[in-house]
């Protein structure tokens, strides 16, 4: 107000000289009237969490899938030692027998040195494998598309070498599939929670913005605006706010994955990195992962905008009802 006279003096002159120039039309709801910063922060955090959850689920699924295909590409035949058994001969027999089944590709006998290495962590170095009753393994790679008939193979093996045991890793694969499913399920649950919290936040923010701008809603009513027009005036701000917030959150999440995968790639085979790999799988998300983050950003922006629109329409309808009903004594302060 203090600079008002100054402004008048400045305005009057150009107005005459430029023959009625007008400024670019200002928005009906001024941006400063919608307290956007807190909302933008909340949306950014929610977007970050949503993208992180999405990325994590994606990663676990990819890791589980690669384990699964590795595991199901092989079966192992284990032969327990027995006094009456010539181990080396039994190993060869078993391998040859396995290879007679269609669907098998290759058979490898894990030799003594390799077996000793497998056992090293438990039994220590310098182990004489011949002195111990250690079971021995034959690894058979199989054709994943048309696997051999495991039941028939088991029967044949039992006949040939009674102490042989065929492990087709079925239990492991089943567990992996179950784990991947559980993770996806939990992830979906987290996403649903994050999205509902966000929708509620936007509902409150929209209602706040409307009650803070009640005078504008009233003026628009008295110049003949429809609810849809008023809603789009408010919705513009929420689209901007939510786009900014969700892009920031999604970008941070993408950055997080990129940095993590870079760190993992550089420090490969260090104990920390191996631990992280064992725990999380590899951090590399691939194109689908990043596309998913982009999709999450879009979903969040659309969701908040629709929520804002819906809330404005409902609130305006309520305001209309209260304004037009003389029996309501909770009349608008404005009236």
């Amino acid at each position, binding site marked *: 107000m203090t600079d008002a006279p100054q402004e008048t003096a400045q305005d*009057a002159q150009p*107005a005459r000289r430029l023959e*009625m*120039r*007008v*400024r670019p039309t*200002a928005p009906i709801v001024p941006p400063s009237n919608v307290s956007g910063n807190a909302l933008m922060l909340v949306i950014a955090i929610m977007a970050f969490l949503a993208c992180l959850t999405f990325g994590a689920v994606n990663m676990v699924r990819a890791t589980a899938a690669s384990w699964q295909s590795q595991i199901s590409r092989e079966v192992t035949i284990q032969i327990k030692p027995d006094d009456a058994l010539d181990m080396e001969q039994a190993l060869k027999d078993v391998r040859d027998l396995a290879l007679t089944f269609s669907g098998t590709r290759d058979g490898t006998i894990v030799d003594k040195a390799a077996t000793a290495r497998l056992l090293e962590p438990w039994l220590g170095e310098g182990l004489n494998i011949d002195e111990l009753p250690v079971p021995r393994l034959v690894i058979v790679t199989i054709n994943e598309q048309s696997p051999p008939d495991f039941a028939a193979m088991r029967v044949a093996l039992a006949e040939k070498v009674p102490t042989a045991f065929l492990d087709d890793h079925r239990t492991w694969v089943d567990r992996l599939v179950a784990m991947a499913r559980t993770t996806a399920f939990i992830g979906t649950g987290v996403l649903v929670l994050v999205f509902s919290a966000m929708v509620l936040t936007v509902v409150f923010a929209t209602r706040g913005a409307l009650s803070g701008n009640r005078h504008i809603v009233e003026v628009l009513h008295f110049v*003949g605006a429809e609810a849809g027009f008023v809603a789009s005036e408010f919705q513009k701000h929420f689209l901007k706010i939510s786009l900014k917030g969700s892009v920031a959150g999604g970008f941070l999440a993408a950055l997080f994955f990129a940095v993590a995968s870079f760190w993992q790639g550089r420090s490969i085979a260090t104990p920390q990195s191996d631990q992280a790999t064992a725990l999380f799988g590899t951090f590399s998300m691939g194109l689908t992962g990043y596309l998913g983050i982009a999709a999450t950003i879009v979903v969040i922006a659309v969701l908040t905008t629709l929520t804002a629109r819906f809330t404005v329409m409902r609130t305006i309808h309520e305001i209309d009802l209260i304004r*037009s009903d003389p*029996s309501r004594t909770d009349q608008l302060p404005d009236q």
Partner: protein
Amino acid sequence: MIHFENVGLRYGMGPEILRDLTFDIPRRSFQFLTGPSGAGKTTLLRLLFLSLQPTRGIIRTFDREISTIPRDELPMLRRRIGIVFQDFRLLDHLTTYENVALPLRVRGKEESSYRADVLELLKWVGLGERINVLPAVLSGGEKQRAAIARALIDRPELLLADEPTGNVDPPMARRLLSLFLELNRLGTAVVIATHDLSLMDQVDEARRMILSQGRLDIYD
């Protein structure tokens, strides 16, 4: 054009502010609405603007009975009515030009299509030099004229004005009145709510609607 039949209105559980009003507002008519403070003039204008539902009775506007009109069609009827408030209700962050153009913007028109019309109207109401200032800078009389210009910009069939001369000196009141008369000559029906007897005396041919104790008396 507008027809009221046995219209009654009470706020909440209070007394009836308006009782059994039956009257017409003919096309191209010019009338003053007067009565003591608190008689219900503003309330009656809100009823005419379809912003308030009567407690009882029938209101017919532009040949449609308003209780049968779906809510979302009401804005379309309101667009044929202009209204000027006692307290102007200009938006503080918009310039005079933008405030006056608001009804057209709300109707979805392009800025380029109405700019010349708005500027012309602003000149006509004597605000040609004030188009780019915010309402905070305007004097009471200038705000009044901006509010009137906003009500006129879309050439309404009916103009409702609540105390349009409440904030201006007698010469300005006369200028505004001649504005309304000019508008009326161009075909708009006008209802002016006012306490100002001297203003009413300036227009002999106008109808007088006098509200008192909930009743309305009309002198043609």
